[in-house]
Each structure stands twice: as C-alpha cells, then as structure tokens.
C-alpha cells in the first residue's frame, strides 16, 4: 500500500567545472515510497522549475539499472544504501520520514564535474579505446558453434561483462582507482578463447592508459566491490594483474 514520507535533501550544486560548488538544502514532502530515487528528484525539479529556480542537473537515461548513466553518492555511498542497486533502481521505501539525505556527484580527478551531479566519465571510453576489444572485422567469423565454450567459462565471462560503466567503483575507492572497471573488461576477454590471442597486449595497453588518465592505484580496500551495482567481483582485478604480469614478462610484446 502506498505511503508518503517527508525528507530533507542536501544536494551538491555547482554551475560548471570552473566554479566552486556547495550544498543546498531542499525539503521534499509527500514523497511516495513507491517512487524511485530519480523520480523523487524529478518531483523536486518540477517544483524548482515552477518556483523559477534552476533544476538540479543529473545524468540518467534507461532508469532500469542497465545503461550506467545515473549515479551519485547518497549519504556517503555510491548509488545509495542498497546492495547491488543503481540509483535509478533505488526506491524511496528504503528511507523514512524525517531523514536527511546528502547527495553528491562522483568525486574523482579523472571525472571532472560538468554541472551539479553530472560528471564527465569519458576517461572510461579512453580505457576501452586503448584495447577493450577483440580485433575482428565484420565478415570473417567462423560458425558460432565452431568453438565450444564451457558453460562455466561463459558464465564467468558474463559475470565480468555485466559491468555497466557507471563509475561507482572509482567514486567509492579512496584512491579513485579504475581497476574494477578495467579488470572486468580484461577478464571477460581473457576468459574466452576468442580473446586469448590479444590478452597480454590488451592488459598492458589498458592498464597503462588507466595510469595515464590519473586514476589511482588499487590499495585493496575492496570498497569498489561493495558499492558496485552489478556486484562485479574483485577477483577480476587479480585476473587483470596476472595478465598484466604475464605481458610484462613476455618482453617481446612490450
């Protein structure tokens, strides 16, 4: 049955990358607990608009937890308090009347703020450009069943491939490391026979790019795994390191 709550919001407002930002306080009353978190912000924005104020900028698109576009730090936690949940899939039933909710953008050197809660994550694209693919052109592929792949391996690759590129791992890491994101992509391909031929080169290129883009190092804090909305396992980082190490040893490819 529907129920409504009243909450206080402290939201980070920042006009653009060049100016300083700060928290503003808003009161949202009569919020249905069946609303998603983003629908709650919609409601606040409708009111701000009618009041002649600038609505809060925030990225979002699918609102189904799959595009990876949404994300903010809610009460200190990337994507909010629910495990395995993106911000768009977080519902207000997890909050209570009278709560104060603090909402901030991802904070990382590699993700500059565009406006309010929206940040620039194009660094992730650059990591993929560095080697996040299998080099096949359209047209020449053999029959799809030519190489059997055990169900176990396929499932493991799928676990890694489920990453939505949201950036929560970077935002929740004390060092703003992109290891979970990068490790997931490297693992997906390293696990599959199709991806083996380039596995070493790929790991080398992607890891180097990551360093170049000002992402920090992994300090084994495991915050990323805890906050990842797709529950990507930290074992992917170990696999990446193994591939990277192997690549380093085979100096011919360096």
């Amino acid at each position, binding site marked *: *049955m529907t129920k409504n709550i009243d909450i206080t919001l402290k939201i980070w407002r920042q006009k653009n990358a060049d100016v300083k930002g700060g928290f503003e306080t808003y009161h949202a009353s009569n919020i249905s607990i069946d609303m998603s978190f983003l629908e709650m912000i919609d409601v606040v924005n409708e009111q701000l608009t009618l009041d002649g104020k600038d609505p809060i900028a925030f990225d979002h698109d699918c609102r189904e937890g799959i595009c990876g576009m949404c994300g903010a730090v809610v009460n200190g936690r990337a994507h909010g308090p629910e495990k395995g949940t993106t911000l768009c899939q977080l519902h207000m039933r997890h909050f209570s009347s009278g709560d104060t909710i603090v909402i901030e953008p991802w904070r990382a050197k590699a993700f500059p703020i565009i406006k309010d809660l929206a940040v620039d994550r194009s660094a992730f694209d650059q990591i993929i450009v560095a080697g996040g693919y299998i080099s096949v052109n359209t047209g020449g592929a053999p029959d799809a069943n030519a190489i*059997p792949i*055990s169900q176990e391996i396929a499932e493991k690759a*799928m676990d890694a491939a489920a990453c939505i590129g949201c950036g929560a791992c970077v935002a929740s890491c004390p060092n703003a490391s992109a290891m979970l994101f990068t490790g997931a992509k490297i693992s997906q391909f390293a696990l599959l026979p199709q991806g083996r031929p380039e596995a070493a080169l790929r790991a080398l290129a992607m890891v180097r790019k990551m360093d170049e883009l000002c992402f920090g190092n992994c300090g084994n804090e495991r915050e990323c795994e805890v906050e990842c909305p797709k529950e990507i396992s930290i074992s992917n980082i170990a696999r990446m390191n193994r591939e990277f190490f192997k690549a380093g040893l085979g100096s011919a490819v360096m």
Partner: protein
Amino acid sequence: MQLDAKIPSGPLSDKWDKHRFELKLVNPANKRKYNIIVVGTGLAGGSAAASLAELGYYVKNFCVQDSPRRAHSIAAQGGINAAKNYQNDGDSIWRLFYDTIKGGDFRAREANVHRLAQVSNHIIDHCVAQGIPFAREYGGLLSNRSFGGAQVSRTFYARGQTGQQLLLGAYSALMRQVAAGLVTLFPRREMLDLVVINGQARGIVVRNMITGEIESHAADAVVMCTGGYANVFYLSTNAMASNVSATFRAYKKGAFFANPCYTQIHPTCIPVHGTYQSKLTLMSESLRNDGRVWVPKTPGDKRPPNQIPESERDYYLENKYPSFGNLVPRDVASRNAKAQCDLGKGVGETGFAVYLDFKDAIKRDGKDVIAQKYGNLFQMYEKITASNPYEAPMMIYPASHYVMGGLWVDYNLMSNLPGLFVMGEANFSDHGANRLGASALMQGLADGYFVIPYTIGGYLVGMDRPEVTTDHPAFKDAVHYVTERINKLLSINGKRTVDDIHRQLGHILWEYCGMSRSEEGLLKARKLIQELRGEFWENALVPGSSEDFNQSLERAGRVADFLEFAELLVIDAFERKESCGAHFNDAYQTEENEAKRDDENFCHVAAWEYKGDDTAPELHKEPLVFENVELTQRSYK
C-alpha cells in the same frame, strides 16, 4: 510521386546476392576520402560506424548520451533471433522470413525481410567472435529460447542482458576504430536538423549539450540510427532521452515518414502505480516461455492470488489460443490483457494488471533453473514492486514499447532523400504492422554490420555530389532555424512544466490511439493534440539558458517535436481504415476479435510527405507485392 523501393528482380532468395554483385564498389584507396556521418550509437549506429570504418571510410559518430555504450539498445533483455536451426526443430531462413512476415501481419516488404533472415546467422557468428558471452549448454554449444510468435527455439541470449552484451560488442568494435583514427566520436550532441543541398543529405546541425554551442558537420552521406519514438506516449519502456526529433527534423526536410501509426504495445510490463511515474519497466517477453498468464474467473475477485483456487482461474491465452498459448504475438497478448481488465477481471490495486505466474514452472524445473534463466528479471521486479515473484505471481500490464513506423527507406536503406540512410528502429522497413520479439536487435545489427557496408558504396560512387563545406548557406540557414527555435522555447515563460504537458499528451494518445482505435476517438485526439500544442507554445515553462548544460531545454525541444509528430501519428491511424497487427481499429475485427485486414485497399506502406506547418501532409503509397507468401488471416489458435 511514385516511390521506388528498388527491390532487385529475380527469385527472393537470390535478390541480395545479385544486388551485392551489381552494386558498384568503391576503390579501397578512395574510401578514406569519403566522410560519413552516423547519428546514433545503438545497435544500428554502433555496428554501422564500426563496419564502415573497418572498410576505410572516415566516420563521425554522434549520440546524446555521454558515451556510445549507453544507447538505448543497452536495455534490451530477451534475446536476438537467428535462423541457425541449432536445435534441429525445423527452423530455416525461410521459416524465420515467414514468421516475421506473418507476425507483421503482411505489411512488410518481402525482399527486406528475407534479406534480414539471410544475414541473421552471420550476426551470431560475428557476435561470438567479438567475445559476447551468450548463454551456453553444458556441452559448450550455444543455448536458445523461444519467443512470442514462433514455434521454434531460435532466440540467442545473454542472461536477461542480451541488448547490453550486443551493444557492448558493437561499442568495442567502434572503439577499436576510434583507436585506428577512422571514427571520431561526438557524444552529448543532439541532432537538431538535417542539411539538404541539391536534394541530397549533406550534413547535420547538432547542439553540444554541455556548452550549448550549435555545431555544423558536413559529409558525403548521413546515416541516421536514432531509435524509436515510443516516448510520444510519455510513459513507455524506452529510455528517457529516446525521441522523434532527429527523424522528425529529417521529415521536415523532405524525408517521408512511413506508417507512423504502427506502434507496439508490449504485453509484459510492470503496471503503472502513480502520476509521478517517469517510465515503465519491461519484463522480458521471454518470461512467457515459463510464466502462465491468468486472471480470476469472476470479475471483481480481490482475493490474493494464492487464495484463488485453480478452478477459479482463467488462463485466458492458453484457453483461447491452444497452439501458441502464452506465446502469442505481442499485439494479441496485449489486446487480450486489456479485454480482461475491461471486463473487470484485472488485478492489483488499480485493476489494470494480470498475473504472470511461475508457480508451475518452479514446481516442474526447480527454483534454480528458473533463477538461472530469469534471475535478474525477478530481482528487478522485486526491487521495483517489493514483491517476490518466486512466491507470488508477477503483475503485468501492457505498455508502449516499440515502433514499427519510421522514416521510409528503399531496399538499400536509403530514404527518398539521396544520401540519407536510415537504420534500426528509426526506419520502417522490416516489421510490418507488428514486430516479433528478439527481431529488433537482429534488424539493427543486420542493417549496420551487413547491409549498409554494401549499399552505401553504391550510392557514393553512383551519384555525383558537389564539394560542400559547412560554409554553405544551407548550413547557415539550419543553424539560424535551430537557434531561433531554442530562443523561442526559452522565452515562452509560461506556467506549466514541459513534463506536465508531455504527460497529458501521453494520456491523449494512450486513450485514443493506443491498443485500440476508433475514427471518433482519433478525430478527438487530433483536436486535443492541436490544442495542447497551442498551449505548449503559450504556457510552457523552460528554465535556464541555451549556453549551458540545460536538461529542461533538451526535454522541451523533444516534447515540442512529439506534439507535432503525434498529430501525424493520429492522421496515419485515421487513414488506415483496417486493422492490422498492432494497429487495431475497433470497426475492423473478425468474429474472434482479431485484427481484420483489408488487403484490397490497404496492402501498402503509407509514406507521408511534409507540406508545411499549416498544410496537411501528403500521403504516398508504396504498394506491397507478395510473390512468395500467401496473405492469410493470422491465426495463433
């Protein structure tokens, strides 16, 4: 004007080979000289941009999201079809072709659909080579599932995230070409106009969504893959940014809009629960493989589902359609759900829902098997509704989901404007009046990986084009028009938010132009839309400025276009005086309440030409000729 679909002559199964042979080839050394604009990075746009760059063309690729990987294709759950016949259950290219033609209620072009079925197998091969982790059997071979409208198991899938995996595959291929220097990405750009010079598409004008700058880009050809317009209904399963603006602007520049009234209502979505709701969530159709749809036999029965005994449940799809049962096509499933609710048998708080029950499947296969197949969907359902589908049946209701209508294209996927190619959901070509599940992903990738790489070459060497730069007056005019319109939006300064008006538009369409339509209702809708459009331009409130990251302005531009486009949709629905597939006019139905076609008078594509803001659009008909299949009354009994 007679529309020429340029369908190659000869037997159906030889057409594509013959055509590929006859198309002129571009000298490999010359390919780099050609600039191609691809708008959209979904399955269609991403695969096209990557494949064209692999051939050596220089590609500029645009999208509205912050990264090409976030195109709306990412949200597709269920799967992708191919005629591999790996299950040995009687599938073939011909059967996939036939099912698609029949599913579309005989309102698609035979030649296009046959080509789609032919290339479907290559898609799966290519995607596996790209490292897409499709579901597999214990023996290591690919696994399949069934989808609505088919009696064979031909759908390939990656858990409930097939669209995501296919898109990430295309995205990887695209990024590889970015690395090679052949693709330049332009994310966070919204196409606001098409530039036509000497009757040829020569470029686009976009808004940089971060700075607000209006940018011009010239090219030898423009490939639009901007997705569908289901958001004209306000609530839909599409992503928030899905829009009609790009295709509608092209329409206003002379491209014909085909069959806008063919809009698909998907039967299995999470029901609406409040006015604040911003979108509807699809529960993949694959769930109908194992879930059984039912309502209580007695209208108004409000007992919780578990207290309603078997004998008092009506498994209405299984009863009415014994051979397809829960796997009837979408339009049939949706209309039947609505009919049950109209009889007062709907369930849940609002009465606008039916049950989708997994109890028997769990009993038969065990919870683990069901969890492996649908785990993430069940989880998503529980997150949204706080109800556990392993224990209580899901509640579902139809929602606006997909559009078969789109810009008119010929066999080469080129619109009536030379140099403008349209692919994926943005064109009208392959699904007739109703799309079967798992066929949109197939079409998007067929268009991008396997059709455009051939057909664009034929155009580029086959037609002379003058040298053109963005200094051409046509670009200046387009920039001027776009800027004026933005300024106009920002200066309305009224009292209603854009979302509020959009919501009202959605109500009008859902009520009068949704799952069933009538002439009276459509006339009413047209008037209401005109009034609402008037109100928008007088009373909308669009805050902020143009030189800024201004999401309200973005939405306002899209809604302004929806308000114009909605009228075209209603006009098209009104003119099609028959029922076919998803277009159901109450006045035309069989005794069994199925869509009743009028093949004598409406076996054509309706392609609309823009004639000015205050002039009615002009209808052009492309007759559909069926040489290989017999037109029958669809039956799924």
